């Protein structure tokens, strides 16, 4: 069972994201956590906050408990927990940790420029 929370739509790439700006890419994210550990709870909170602040209304967030879905770990190459997987837009990126460093998360989501990179943030 996947645990879908918040304003997220079901994890279906075909789903219409409400009020998604045409120019802005839609985000499909998966967050792998280990049960209800403080670190997992913190990661979920952080993720929801970042989503609401930066990609509100144009994201799908799926939260997966690895204890309930151990086979997903192998399939998605999860080692560290929590791991946030950016499935879309391409390329696939993973951000590990409790996501308390917002700047790093934004870099990983391509919402902030990589240090030293000249390319402005897209999306």
């Amino acid at each position, binding site marked *: 069972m996947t645990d879908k929370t918040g304003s997220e739509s079901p994890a279906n790439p075909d789903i219409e994201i409400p009020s998604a700006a045409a120019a802005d890419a839609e985000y499909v994210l998966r967050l*792998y956590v*280990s049960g209800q550990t403080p*670190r997992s709870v*913190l*990661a979920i909170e*952080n993720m929801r906050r970042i989503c609401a602040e930066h990609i509100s209304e144009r994201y799908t967030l799926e939260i997966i408990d*690895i*204890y309930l879905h*151990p*086979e997903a*770990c*192998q399939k998605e*190459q*999860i*080692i*560290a*927990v*929590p*791991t946030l997987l950016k499935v879309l837009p391409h390329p*696939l*990126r*993973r*951000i*590990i*940790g*409790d*996501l*308390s*460093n*917002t700047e*790093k*998360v934004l*870099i*990983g989501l391509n919402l902030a420029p990589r240090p030293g990179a000249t390319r402005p943030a897209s999306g």
Partner: protein
Amino acid sequence: MIEHAQLSKSATGIDGLDAITEGGLPTGRPTLLCGAAGCGKTLFGVTFLVQGAVRFKQPGVLMTFEERPDDISANVESLGYDLPGLIASKSLAIDQVRIERGESEESGDYDLEGLFVRLGHAIDSIGAKRVVLDTIENLFGGLSDATVLRSELRRLFAWLKEKGVTAIITGERGEGQLTRHGLEEYVSDCVVLLDNRVQNQITTRLLRVVKYRGSTHGTNEYPFLIDHQGISVLPITSAGLRHQTSNEPVPTGVQGLDDMLGAGGYYKGSSVLISGTSGSGKTIFGSHFADATCSRGERCLYFAFEESPGQIVRNVLSVGLDLQKHLDSGLLRFEAARPTLYGFEMHLARMNRDLDEFKPATTVIDPISAFRGPESEVHSVLLRMVDILKTKGITAVMTQLTSEHERMASGDQGIPSLIDTWVALGALEAGGERNRGVYVLKSRGMGHSNQVREYQITNKGIRLLDVYRSVDGVLVGSARRQAQALQQKKSRGKTNGKTALKPASKERRGLRSQGKSR
């Protein structure tokens, strides 16, 4: 003293290693297997799992951090390990952990619970009893927080113990420590070190059990082999002087030579040296021995270090010895290798394995003089070789090349003391001719002839000739023929008269009765 229960051990199925560790790796505990790249760590791990699954019905999990499962399967296929088949029958599970640093970003704290869950899932899904982590240190390349990694690894090894699985954790050899990231700090129940040593451009693989908590173990470095049969470790340094002795003679295969030996042949299980200059027919003597063994319906293993088997078979066929038929019947087997192909230890190790596998009654080692190197090393190898052969009760004929200038009897490599029976071949130079002579230099535990006998290599093999002595000594070559003719003439002339020259063949078994031979 109260007898304590022995530490429970899980056999690795790797011959030799189980002997060194007195039963295998500690059951339910992790073992660290470390060595430099190319030492065979992965193969050790895979062998442990495959043998566990096939021979001991213990399913196993391989978690690989390096090689792809398909590559591993392909690599061990030639050893007869059917990994896909084992996976299908739920005897094996392989999980590849890919760590790509460029793909991930780190933000905040994390732990390796994902790894635990994966491993736990794999273990539970097949009821695994064995686990191999190869090479977990690769995590250090993928994750930047070494402190977290270290504490998580410590937790992982404790967790593995709790799970009760027998685990092998491989680690790359590091500078000044056993592993690059100091895994030995966490895995301390059993540590096995693999090494690849190159000396004189020859590589020898060595294994050493560095530590084994709660158990005694062999402490030496043991050579091990990786070849088409997989891994075999050879605890050959343990050979001792405990072998059985036998009074049973084993025919030499050479007509006449048996009679020179008091027992009527070599003693069973003894070690025989046939030394001679080049062209003296050492290989033919050896082949006679092999032929005689096989003709009795026993097996003979022929180690050829200078000639190819085909060449030996062809060459001795020219003197009337058909070894091919013994090859065809499976009683004779050749193991040919250049001495320089492996180190001494490796040769010994291979020979030991071949002997165990073929279980021959006799063996021919042709020639041992092919082993060149520091005298002490060669001596040590030959000593152990003789020990191995004796322990197994195999009668061995070894040939040795002596140089033209050396005395017929002189030997090097310190082998004389190891040898039970020494047959020396050499040239007898007299009357402007070179003829071939053979004599028994020594033969422990039996009387033997002290005569130098002339022999010929004929198209029916080696033939020892009757001895003709004169006041000047033994007559050989044309002088002998002359004496023979003379004697025949005389015996035709007068029937019972005394002859100045007489065939000494009747006295050839006379032990100390005859005068000095040259």
